[in-house]
């Protein structure tokens, strides 16, 4: 156990509309989420004295967190623009908790948005693509895109453990079914395994329906210390455990393609919380591709090595299963605006623990696991959240 466990709480969350949002500017959308999260928590914008954020591709700024604060009309005493890919939001919750616990600030706003569908000029889209496409000297000359690099991990993983494309496809099917129960999800049309296996090849074994969506959208989170959290409008969701591990950035540098930093980050989070995988009622796992979910389930200890395919096939990750995963539909079906993608996993975990999920509610959910994965299985941050 650590002094950080239970010391801070998430007290407000909000997400913007997802999909195509042409009518809002990118920063405007971020600020809209910030105001909604603050209103939900019952705090005034002027109470916020810490701002953590991620830069956007559609409206990039040299100091994004400072511009966001200026737009909001607040003058924080703690300001940070983070850059850990899909692990960013979990890591920002971790940084926020540490800063709150140390007394560097009292009320934190985490807010991000991007507009990958309607917000990028052709030049920005090309730049975004280049940025995401591996090492400039040792990878990019070979024509990789992010799916190809995850496909390398999938290829190796399937080779070592005999996991099948059908089992991988089931991940996409479950996510789509969950999205169908979320009012704000981008893609709700049910799909079958056959649909996934017949979708266009991107980088084999990954096909279009193994890949996450492309969206406009964003979200916001408000955090404060546990003592203050109890006096606010919402049932507080406490941060019980956190852990990070960053092994490498580039896929050719990965020591082992079938295991990643999640093993370590998860163990740290469980240790801090004094809990184990079996204690989790629901899990929100970064699902940039179907393969990512399989690898994370194993590294985080939710099923034995090499058995994630069978675990998924057994119905375990669907609502009603042993460990419902990404009940909002995840990046695969709820939405993926790029850098803000990881915020929705945290928001959904909070809503599950508050009991606000209606048809997709996991009954009596008291403990939630959230994992952010960035780069090519490169950056990892795990959170354990609980009602008490």
């Amino acid at each position, binding site marked *: 156990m650590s002094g950080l466990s239970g010391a801070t709480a998430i007290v407000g969350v909000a997400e913007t509309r997802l999909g195509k949002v042409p009518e809002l500017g990118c920063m405007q959308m971020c600020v809209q989420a910030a105001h909604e999260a603050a209103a939900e928590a019952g705090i005034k914008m002027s109470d916020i004295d810490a701002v953590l954020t991620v830069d956007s591709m559609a409206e990039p700024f040299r100091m994004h967190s400072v511009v966001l604060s200026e737009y909001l009309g607040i003058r924080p005493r703690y300001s940070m623009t983070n850059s850990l890919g899909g692990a960013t939001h979990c890591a920002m919750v971790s940084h926020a908790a540490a800063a709150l616990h140390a007394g560097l600030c009292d009320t934190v706003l985490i807010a991000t948005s991007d507009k990958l569908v309607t917000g990028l000029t052709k030049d920005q889209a*090309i730049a975004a*693509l280049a940025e995401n*496409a*591996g*090492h*400039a*000297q*040792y*990878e*990019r*000359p*070979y*024509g*990789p*895109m992010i*799916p*190809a690099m995850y*496909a*390398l*991990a*999938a*290829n*190796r993983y399937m*080779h070592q453990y005999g996991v099948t494309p059908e089992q991988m496809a089931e991940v996409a099917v479950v996510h789509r079914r969950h999205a169908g129960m979320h009012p704000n999800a981008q893609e709700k049309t049910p799909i079958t395994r056959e649909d996934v296996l017949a979708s*266009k*090849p*991107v*980088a*084999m*074994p*990954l096909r279009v329906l193994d890949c996450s969506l492309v969206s406009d959208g964003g979200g916001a989170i408000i955090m404060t210390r546990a003592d203050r959290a109890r006096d606010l409008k919402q049932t507080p969701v406490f941060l019980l455990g956190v852990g990070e591990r960053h092994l490498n950035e580039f*896929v*050719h*540098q990965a020591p082992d*393609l079938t295991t990643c930093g999640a093993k370590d980050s998860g163990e740290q989070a469980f240790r801090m919380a004094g809990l184990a995988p079996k204690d989790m009622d629901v899990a929100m796992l970064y699902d940039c591709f179907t393969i990512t979910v399989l690898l994370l389930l194993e590294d985080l200890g939710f099923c034995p090595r090499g058995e994630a395919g069978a675990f998924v096939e057994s119905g375990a990750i669907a609502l009603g299963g042993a460990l419902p995963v990404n009940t909002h539909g995840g990046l695969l079906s709820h939405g993926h605006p790029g850098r803000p993608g990881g915020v929705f996993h945290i928001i959904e975990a909070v809503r599950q623990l508050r009991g606000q999920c209606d048809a997709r509610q996991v009954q009596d959910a008291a403990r939630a696991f959230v994992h952010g994965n960035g780069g090519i299985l490169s950056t990892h941050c795990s959170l354990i959240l609980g009602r008490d």
Partner: protein
Amino acid sequence: MAETLSLPAPTPTGDSKEYWSAANDGRLILRACRTCGKPMFYPRGHCPACGSGDLEWREASGEGVVHACTIVHRAPDQAFRARAPYVIALVDLKEGPRMMANITDCPPEEVRIGMPVTVWFEARSETIAIPQFRPAQGEKK
């Protein structure tokens, strides 16, 4: 729209200029540590295993084995689209380090984990050639 995209030629940096210069001469060289003895990829100014700055260049055999591979159908730009579908692989070099390359001179679907491969060099500009791999001689096509 007049797109004149060509396949990328890397821009050498201080820690890689000898590597790219050798590649342009048709040689694969590896940076290696004189303190702990380990070769590294990619070339760095200090050894990532022990931190030593006492490094040397070593001639690599150019032999390796496919560690993982994918057939890319959706390419990043027009230049690569002309090549698709193509294979991207991680190759474990005989000397130990792992690097990325395309596997050429072979139908994409025949590339397998464990396949022995040999280096060759593809010119990308007048001064830059990049290491590529093809099935080793005697390997069944």
